[in-house]
């Protein structure tokens, strides 16, 4: 379903750039500007657009096995994506209990709504 929508709708690229901006916002909010830039030197941010699971694993590995650090960044990515969608497309995505939500599923949900809007 998402695949066919992407083929029909060229704005999938717009969604990807919004997603990458969400990562920028989340990293800056969590780590500060200089540390966010340093992390981006090692973590391939563009991975999130194609393989959210690999991106999540990158964060997990970098921010220890306890998972608290990577979970905070993931929640911030979801928060900022929801805010960007609301601002740019007036799309409302529920943001309750983000800690329990899966990043990949959240991205897929946002993408569907973005492409349908």
């Amino acid at each position, binding site marked *: 379903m998402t695949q066919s929508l992407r083929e029909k709708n060229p704005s999938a690229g717009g969604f990807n750039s919004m997603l990458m*901006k969400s990562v*920028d*916002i*989340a990293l*800056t*909010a*969590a*780590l*500060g*500007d*200089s*540390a*966010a*830039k*340093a*992390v*981006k*030197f*090692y*973590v*391939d941010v*563009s*991975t999130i657009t194609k*393989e959210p*699971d*690999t991106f999540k*694993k*990158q*964060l997990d*590995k*970098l*921010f*220890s096995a*306890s998972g*608290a*650090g990577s979970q*905070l960044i993931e929640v*911030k990515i979801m*928060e*900022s994506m929801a*805010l960007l969608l609301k601002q740019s497309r007036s799309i409302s995505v529920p943001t309750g209990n983000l800690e329990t939500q899966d990043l990949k599923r959240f991205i897929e949900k946002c993408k569907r709504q973005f492409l349908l809007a």
Partner: protein
Amino acid sequence: MANLATAVALFLTSVILIALAVMIKKPNKEYLQRGVGITRTSTILLGVFLLVHSFYHVSEFIGNDFFSDDIIEPASILLLLAFSIYVKTHVFVPRSPKSQKEILTKKVIAEDSSSRVIPLVFAIPLLMMSLSFFTTDNVAELFSMGGILASVAMFGWMALKNPSPSSLHFQFAIIVLVWAAAEIPQGLSTLGFLSLGGVDTYGTWVHFVSMALIGAFICLRTLRIVLFSPKIDPNFIK
């Protein structure tokens, strides 16, 4: 002349990296500090490797072969190895299989080719190096060749496990592969396994290309992040 140009390029690149590492601020939350600490350590390792390697080229330019080949080059290779191991241990993750079908395909592929090809590619030079350990006095040359091959193997393995062209490990795999292309014929010639005319000139220029690649890769990656990242309001989200 290639030595001097390489030394200047590497020195300037190392300054950029060391300055970046110094400027990184620790986040307030303790559980975020580990990740930032890892990026700082690996940036310092990469910066110091390039700095030491630039001294090697200065020493080669001056003509002090003992100092360059027997002391500084092995030291820089040791730093490259440390960087490779550090990235593999703390930063690299293999690509996640997208579907169950891909998981099964990956299992089949892993069982036959990729995991066996790399050791085979490096087995012959490593075997020659092991044999020459007993017949040559040039231990420093052996160490440098072995270090570069080990680094190529590590980054090559990472590039196979996660073939994303924009990732650090993929780009570094290309750089160390070009470097190995320069070092292997030169090293084998020094150890007496090859007798090719002009191998020194070839090696120097291919080495220059690999070092220019390192400089260009780090400068472009840094500039892209520092200059072309969108301006972010840290209070955009709470």
